[in-house]
């Protein structure tokens, strides 16, 4: 058992740290997605990485970087430390792997380049008003008509659909079959007639998610990935595929560091709040919780590196990771005080924001991050999965 990085790993760390320092768009450092102003803000970093060939470390040859799991981990740590923008996951981490795993050579040639370059923006057409946790009960239909499917239905919670060029959709191609066995995985051009995107404003005031309506939308059968009625296989693959980073350990470390900086600036009765005994204790507990999660993630990585698959402990990464993310936002609220009360509208930039800069997004973040225990498979569902698949209950 050995928890030290090898000299080769440290050399790799230096290499990537230098690259990030020299190429990262400084104007976006530490900004939340809700603060981005336009499409370019979302894509600038992705384009830098694409040029370097480092956009998709998890992808196999010839697309990926051939990095070891440890190197991928170091890369994630260094990006978090420098507060780089997050690469949009829908293309690179979701539909891309589905296409290179289940797609035909023609489909790979058609779709992969646009995913990697960032020229094609993807969104995820999964959830529906009646199909949240119970995704397999989805009702969007795809009815065969010659060489096309006619798609009708409504997707919801579609992140950033307002910018998307394409959407990958789970649709029902066999109404008679058992729920999971009648679903197909379709790629749809957002410019196809019959598609309407309606914004959903979230309680923090931001526009991150949307409804996407399909009204007799014609989708070529050639846009179907994998066999008809086998789409659930793709869906499951996608959901389990990208484990690296799901715990968000590096980003949470950075967020705690920023919290501590803030607490050093916030004064309570003439002293720094970071020296307040209550806060010291709360921060210590949080850091310890995160350290335990970090080592759980490292065990997962070591297991993967040894070719043994992620291991049972990996199932807790989403639950603990999101609970820690949420806890950080609670502590920020506790630290900021009265200046957590003004509302600065994320959709109207350059508004008057009273109080210190660190207070400005405190309430919005706290409210916005309530989503993390809900999305990606709610934490209740994740616990059900552990109970059933890990504990055998």
């Amino acid at each position, binding site marked *: 058992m050995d928890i030290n990085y090898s000299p080769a790993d440290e050399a790799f760390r230096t290499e990537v740290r230098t690259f990030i320092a020299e190429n990262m768009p400084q104007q976006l450092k530490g900004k939340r997605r809700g603060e981005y102003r336009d499409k370019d803000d979302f894509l600038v970093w992705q384009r830098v990485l694409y040029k370097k060939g480092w956009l998709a470390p998890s992808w196999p040859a010839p697309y990926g970087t051939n990095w070891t799991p440890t190197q991928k981990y170091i890369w994630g740590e260094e990006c978090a430390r420098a507060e780089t923008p997050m690469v949009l996951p829908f293309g690179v981490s979701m539909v891309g792997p589905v296409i290179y795993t289940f797609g035909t050579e023609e489909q790979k040639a058609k779709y992969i380049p646009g995913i990697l370059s960032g020229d094609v923006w993807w969104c995820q057409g999964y959830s529906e008003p009646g*199909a949240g946790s119970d995704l397999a009960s989805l009702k969007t239909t795809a009815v065969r008509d010659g060489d096309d499917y006619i798609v009708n239905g409504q997707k919801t919670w579609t992140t950033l659909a307002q910018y998307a060029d394409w959407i990958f959709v789970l649709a029902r191609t066999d109404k008679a079959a058992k729920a999971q066995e009648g679903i197909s995985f379709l790629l749809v051009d957002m410019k196809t007639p019959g598609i309407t995107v309606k914004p959903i404003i979230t*309680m923090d005031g931001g526009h991150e998610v949307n409804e996407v309506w399909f009204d007799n939308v014609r989708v070529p059968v050639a846009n179907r990935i994998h066999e008809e009625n086998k789409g659930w296989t793709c869906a499951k693959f996608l959901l389990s595929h990208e484990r690296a980073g799901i715990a968000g350990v590096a980003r949470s470390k950075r967020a705690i560091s920023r919290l501590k900086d803030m607490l050093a600036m916030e004064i309570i009765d003439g002293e720094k709040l970071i020296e307040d005994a209550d806060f010291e204790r709360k921060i210590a507990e949080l850091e310890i919780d995160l350290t335990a999660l970090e080592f759980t993630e490292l065990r997962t990585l070591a297991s993967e590196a040894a070719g043994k698959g992620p291991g049972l402990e990996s199932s807790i990464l989403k639950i603990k990771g999101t609970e820690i993310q949420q806890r950080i936002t609670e502590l920020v609220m*506790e630290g900021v*005080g009265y200046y957590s*009360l*003004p509302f600065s*509208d994320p959709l109207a930039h350059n508004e*008057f924001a009273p*109080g210190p800069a660190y207070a400005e997004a405190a309430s*919005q973040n706290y409210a916005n991050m309530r989503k993390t225990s809900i999305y990606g498979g709610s934490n209740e569902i994740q616990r059900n999965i552990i109970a059933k698949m890990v504990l055998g209950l």
Partner: protein
Amino acid sequence: MDFSFTEEQTLLRNSVQKFIQGSYDFDTRRKVSKSDSGWRKEVYGQIAEMGLLGVAVPEDFGGLGGSAVDNMIIAEEFGRGLVIEPWLNNAVIASGFLTAAGSKAQKEELLPAIAAGETIFAFAYAEPQGRYNLADLTTTAKKAGDGYTLNGHKAVVLGAPFADKLIVTARTSGGQRDADGVTVFIVDKSAKGVSTRDYPTVDGNRASEVMLENVSVGADAVIGEVGGGLKTVELVTDQAIAALAAESTGAMKVLNDTTIEYAKTRKQFGTPIGKFQVLQHRMVDMFMNYEQSVSIAYMVTLKLDEAEAERKKAASAAKVQIGKASRFIGQSAVQIHGGMGMTDELNVGHYFKRLTMIDTLFGNVDHHLKRYASLG
């Protein structure tokens, strides 16, 4: 031992509920909150006409001669309706200051005007550096002839955009955080040297940063004793805490009821999600948090007239209880509603935000745990 309400109090509650149903359905509230002005002055007038601004003010001064319990009832129902108009600032805080420490002339001039909805107050006490310490003041009031000259910066003055007058805490003597030397002033918002910068708050209300630059006030602007104002400030903020405790239980009740209703009707995996034991237990915990909060709202309201230390302990206990309960209920309501709980369109997020804000007002859980513990 009696926790029942009188017939009058039941009638009071019913009339406030009717008012909320008529003027404060959720979609209306949402529209008003997003409007340019952020409130409805005519609704404030209705609130005044119903006598709700002067319920606990002595009859001699234009009030109904009621008690803090009556205010508790109004606060709870206003919490259910997410009422924006500045009832707390006027019915509890401004009236509280004047009743406790105002001169006869101030009471005669201002209490009836407040009760009638003609004069609207806001309370400017917090400062950028002060956090929750009511005595931490860099706003100064220097003697100038018979009057005073005020200079300073008051932070997050809730309801200031709707107000004509401000109650301002300032230092006439002593060090920045000394208990002695705090004086309470009435300042016209339109006075020379007063400037405000308005903005919306997270819970859909409005506040201002208030800058005071060489603002002149007369001797008659002082409420109570020069330099001896802190005790009154602490009393009135404890009264406000009692009202906020009640308001929060109204909001909690809405969240609990809507969550149970949702869990009974939302079906996934072929069954209403309310059948899942994990969610049932969560909703039971929400219920228990609510009931404990109701209990503590009663307790603090009934102890407002006790001796200082006991009153402060009660107020701190209440603030801690509702702070913790609000966080749990707010977060649970959002979680059980799933994605819907995250939307601006549904009421859940709005109640979640109001409860989050109440936790910060007049001291959060940490602050009041410390105050409670320090009182022995």
